């Protein structure tokens, strides 16, 4: 369980910063850091076992039918990456606390950061490739949020979009590759796939799968020719760059290649694709880095170059090379994170990252200089720092690698890459920190506070320690990780001195010497570089994306032009045509089921329904008449239900009918009373044809259905047989609602409650001010008002009816389990009884006399239903399992007590609250429109012979 918890912790932690920021920035950063530290601690507790060579697994079935399970495992490779992600994450959290300015929303930043961290940890711990893909896409999404964190900067938005497009597209390719891989192996579990090397490499699908997976890895790790997104992602705040580009995002691609190494590596295809791409990326990016003036852009390209280096090593497919790759991942993470943070400090203090405007900072920022010195010397590969060790080992590996029969190509190009690397590292150092102090910095720089340089200083210390005692400081981790990658025990020998006979030594010397010479002539080379035209990746990218976006926009404009009528017409015609097509092409005879005889009274009801429906079309412009006709139709439908053995439906339909008509009447008060003639004759004909087409289709379909027997045995029999035995009720419909399908009902009342709250929110928004509010305040009734709005007869009758109606409601509720009735119907009946009071004496009068909060009613309803369901857990049975028993209390008859009744109470309360809240919201609009509020129950009081003398008060609604 704890592995899943490690992956889940950052996601849970993502909820906290938004809350904690209210307690201040320190509290926010500390909470975030605490969560990360906790995850790191839990990881650390597993470390001893993993280092002993054990693999820790957690398996949770999620969607076993799809092969998607939340399985996690932790081996040496996972430990290395998870350690980097969480460890460097912790330092970034500290650094960001001091880096972000007061105007930056810090809570948001940490939330995004934690989401990203969780996704990364998820990738490295996943034991299921489908799960891995989910996390993979999550990193693309959360890095989009992080890169675009400064939303006000167009570069930030564009960089974020580019990163998302490139890595997202690569992720899509990878999904396909992973599915192929899973298909070959017969399982989506990584541990199973990793044992199927022969089957996978022998498959004809090996090459397509390899290419697709590598597309995902290369785009993520910014390998040539997908390297261009990474420098644009530098528009992000520096902590983000430091995190994404040293330890996490771009390393995800490397991780994937390392993870898949046991099954994919070792073939010529793997070698030529991966090693060549890595080599090209390493050399090309190192050369570009040399000519970048922006500190972060320089570091970005150097990152691309180092990623290429590691990719190349993985591409060699040998155990030794994979070991070096693991070691360099550690080293690169340490020195590159430190360098990014130093660049951020320079930017923060000097207000510029332009290398041409800097120089001489050594005197002004000695601490930062010291950190940058160590880190950039390590990047250049100067002994005895850790960068030197892994670079030396890398050169050694290339010296033994043959590329297409050539012994010299690999070592020469690798040395060239190292040479560029030396040059840009020293340029970073020399042009920023060395030289004379200038007097034209945009802002006078000085060292920042301890909080800001603590994190990079710690990393710089690690650089030195790993450099001095590599075997003690990192050897064990490299062994564990490389052992997991290669599947064989590894004992790395990391040494500073390999003897004079070692080719790597001379390659190194050449690189350092050449690099220094290159730097010396940098000014001249820079001029040549700037004069040579070269392809601008962003322009090419935009050139591809913009026409696509324009095309998408055109298609949208045609198909999605804002005309609802058009969508509905297209949808109706398409669906009906498909239905007709299925009907015409399938083989079917006529129905064999015996027809039910037609009797006179139902035939009259049918006649009324059909005539009203047709009249509805003819008179739909007169909206009040429409309501009357809808009422007739609804009445006929409910009578029909009653006739056709559905008493529950009849009761529900008729009470809903009343509520609907009242609702529509209230709304019609403000809407125009007639619909103008707009459609041309042709259009009416078209719509009429569509309607007839659809109506006939539906009618024929249901006729065909009703005249045939069930194709499969109906599950209705089960419900009929078990309703009394297991549900304890004889009204099967009600038992299904509150018991068999209680979960559905629970969902439905929740939806109903949400619907009512949406109505309330809409009302609030309308009444808050703005054109709707102005229009309401200036409202003048477009129809004559009755002189006596609250007639005596109605008031007296509803008052008398209220207790009766409430008793009926209680009765219907109680008998629901055994006879027609139940919570839904009772809720509607009681709601109508209450609404009658509103109608009789007005909203305000009634509101003043009842103290029920409808929101609370809805909430209580849903909560009671949920609590009933949860109660089942205490009995050790699943959610919403009901229980019942029979009790005898003298002098009553034997009666039943069922938990389902409690659930039904929740239904009752929700329905009541929802209906009342909807209608009350409309009344509030009426009051805002100047509806008079009456103080008395009647307009014309029987004791005074005539209208009241004092005018009714006209006030707007009191808030």
């Amino acid at each position, binding site marked *: 369980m704890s592995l899943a918890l490690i992956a889940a912790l950052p996601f849970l932690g993502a909820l906290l910063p938004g809350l904690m920021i209210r307690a201040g920035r320190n509290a926010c950063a500390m909470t975030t850091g605490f969560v990360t530290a906790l995850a790191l601690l839990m990881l650390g507790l597993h470390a001893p076992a993993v280092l002993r060579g054990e693999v820790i697994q957690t398996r949770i079935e999620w969607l076993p039918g799809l092969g998607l399970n939340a399985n996690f495992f932790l081996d040496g490779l996972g430990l290395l990456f998870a350690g980097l992600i969480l460890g460097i994450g912790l330092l970034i959290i500290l650094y960001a606390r001091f880096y972000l300015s007061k105007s930056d929303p810090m809570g948001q930043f940490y939330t995004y950061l934690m989401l990203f961290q969780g996704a990364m940890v998820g990738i490295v711990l996943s034991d299921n490739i489908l799960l891995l893909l989910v996390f993979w896409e999550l990193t693309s999404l959360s890095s989009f949020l992080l890169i675009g964190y400064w939303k006000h900067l167009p570069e930030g938005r564009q960089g974020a979009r580019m990163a998302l497009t490139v890595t997202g597209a690569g992720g899509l390719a990878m999904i396909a590759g992973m599915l192929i891989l899973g298909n070959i192996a017969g399982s989506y579990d990584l541990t199973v796939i990793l044992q199927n090397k022969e089957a996978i490499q022998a498959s004809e699908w090996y090459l397509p799968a390899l290419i697709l997976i590598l597309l995902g890895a290369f785009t993520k790790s910014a390998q040539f020719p997908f390297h261009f997104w990474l420098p644009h992602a530098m528009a992000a705040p520096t902590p983000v760059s430091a995190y994404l580009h040293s330890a996490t995002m771009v390393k995800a691609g490397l991780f994937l290649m390392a993870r898949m190494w046991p099954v994919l590596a070792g073939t010529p295809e793997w070698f030529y694709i991966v090693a060549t791409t890595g080599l090209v990326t390493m050399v090309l990016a190192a050369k570009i880095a040399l000519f970048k003036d922006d500190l972060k852009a320089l570091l970005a390209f150097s990152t691309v170059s180092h990623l290429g280096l590691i990719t190349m090593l993985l591409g060699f497919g040998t155990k030794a090379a994979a070991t070096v790759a693991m070691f360099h991942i550690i080293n690169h993470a340490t020195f590159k994170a430190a360098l990014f943070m130093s660049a951020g400090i320079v930017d923060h203090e000097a207000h510029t990252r332009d290398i041409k405007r800097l120089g001489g900072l050594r005197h002004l920022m000695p601490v930062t200089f010291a950190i940058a010195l160590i880190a950039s010397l390590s990047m250049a590969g100067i002994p005895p720092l850790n960068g030197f060790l892994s670079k030396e080992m890398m050169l050694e590996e290339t010296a033994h690698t043959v590329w297409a029969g050539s012994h010299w190509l690999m070592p020469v190009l690798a040395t060239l890459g190292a040479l560029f690397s030396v040059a840009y590292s020293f340029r970073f150092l020399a042009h920023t920190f060395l030289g004379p102090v200038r007097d034209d910095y945009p802002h006078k720089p000085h060292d920042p506070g301890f909080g800001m340089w603590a994190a990079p200083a710690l990393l710089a210390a690690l650089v030195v320690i790993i450099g001095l005692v590599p075997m003690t400081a990192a050897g064990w981790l490299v062994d564990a990780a490389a052992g997991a990658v290669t599947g064989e025990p590894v004992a790395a020998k990391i040494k500073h001195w390999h003897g004079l006979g070692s080719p790597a030594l001379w390659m190194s010397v050449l690189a350092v010497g050449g690099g220094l010479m290159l730097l010396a002539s940098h000014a001249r080379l820079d001029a040549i570089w700037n004069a040579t035209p070269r392809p601008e990746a962003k322009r090419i990218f935009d050139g591809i994306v913009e026409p696509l976006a324009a095309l998408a926009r055109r298609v949208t404009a045609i198909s999605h032009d804002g005309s609802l009528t058009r969508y509905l017409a297209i949808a109706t015609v398409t669906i009906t045509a498909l239905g007709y097509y299925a009907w015409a092409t399938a083989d079917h005879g006529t129905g064999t089921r015996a027809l039910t005889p037609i009797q006179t009274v139902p035939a009259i009801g049918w006649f009324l329904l059909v005539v009203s429906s047709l009249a509805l079309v003819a008179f739909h412009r007169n909206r009040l008449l429409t309501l009357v006709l809808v009422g007739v139709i609804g009445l006929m439908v409910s009578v029909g239900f009653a006739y056709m053995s559905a008493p529950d439906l009849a009761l529900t339909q008729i009470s809903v009918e009343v509520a609907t008509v009242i609702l529509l009447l209230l709304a019609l008060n403000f809407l125009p009373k007639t*619909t103008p003639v707009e459609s041309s004759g042709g259009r009416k004909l078209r719509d009429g044809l569509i309607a007839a087409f659809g109506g006939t289709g539906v009618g024929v379909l249901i006729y065909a259905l009703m005249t045939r027997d069930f194709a499969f045995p109906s599950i209705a029999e089960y419900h009929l047989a078990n309703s009394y035995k297991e549900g304890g009720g004889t009204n099967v419909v009600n038992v299904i609602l509150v018991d068999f399908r209680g979960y559905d009902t629970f969902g439905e009342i929740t939806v109903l409650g949400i619907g009512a709250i949406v109505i309330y929110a809409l009302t609030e928004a309308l009444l808050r001010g703005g054109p709707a509010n102005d229009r309401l305040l200036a409202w003048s009734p477009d129809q004559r008002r009755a002189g006596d709005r609250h007639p005596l007869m109605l008031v007296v009758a509803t008052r008398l009816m209220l207790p009766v109606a409430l008793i009926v409601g209680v009765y219907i509720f109680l008998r629901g389990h055994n006879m027609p009735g139940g919570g839904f119907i009772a809720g509607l009946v009681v709601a109508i009884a209450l609404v009658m009071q509103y109608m009789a004496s007005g909203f305000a009068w009634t509101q003043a006399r009842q103290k029920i909060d409808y929101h609370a009613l809805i909430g209580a309803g849903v909560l009671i239903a949920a609590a009933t369901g949860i109660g089942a857990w205490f009995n050790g049975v699943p959610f919403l399992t009901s229980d019942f028993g029979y009790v005898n209390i003298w002098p009553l008859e034997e009666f039943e007590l069922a938990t389902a009744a409690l659930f039904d109470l929740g239904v009752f309360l929700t329905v009541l609250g929802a209906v009342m809240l909807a209608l009350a919201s409309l009344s509030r609009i009426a009051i805002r429109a100047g509806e008079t509020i009456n103080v008395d129950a009647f307009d014309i009081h029987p004791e005074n012979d005539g209208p009241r003398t004092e005018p009714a008060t006209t006030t707007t609604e009191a808030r």
Partner: protein
Amino acid sequence: MELLVASAIGVMTAVGIYLILRQRTFPVIVGLAMLSYAVNVFIFASGRIKIGFPPILNKYAETSYTDPLTQALVLTAIVISFGMTAVIVMMALGSFLETGDDRIDMTDKTDGEDA
């Protein structure tokens, strides 16, 4: 009886479709209400028609019952369609009050230009 039910469903569907193709909010709302009737009766009727056999268990005699499952489905559907009608009525009212117009189609074309 089957013929009556089927033709009633057909007529209600046709009227519903015709009305939702109108260009003002109110007829569209009424059209949706008509479609709700039609769909509810359709689902109900798919349990086949039986007259005089409500699904209330009879303790004292062996008898047959009509399909309770479709009834249970339709019962909640009726209540939910009320909720849906209430929400769209409110939306229609809101849009009329905001714009002074109860047309259903968007008339002004605003192209969202992204940065």
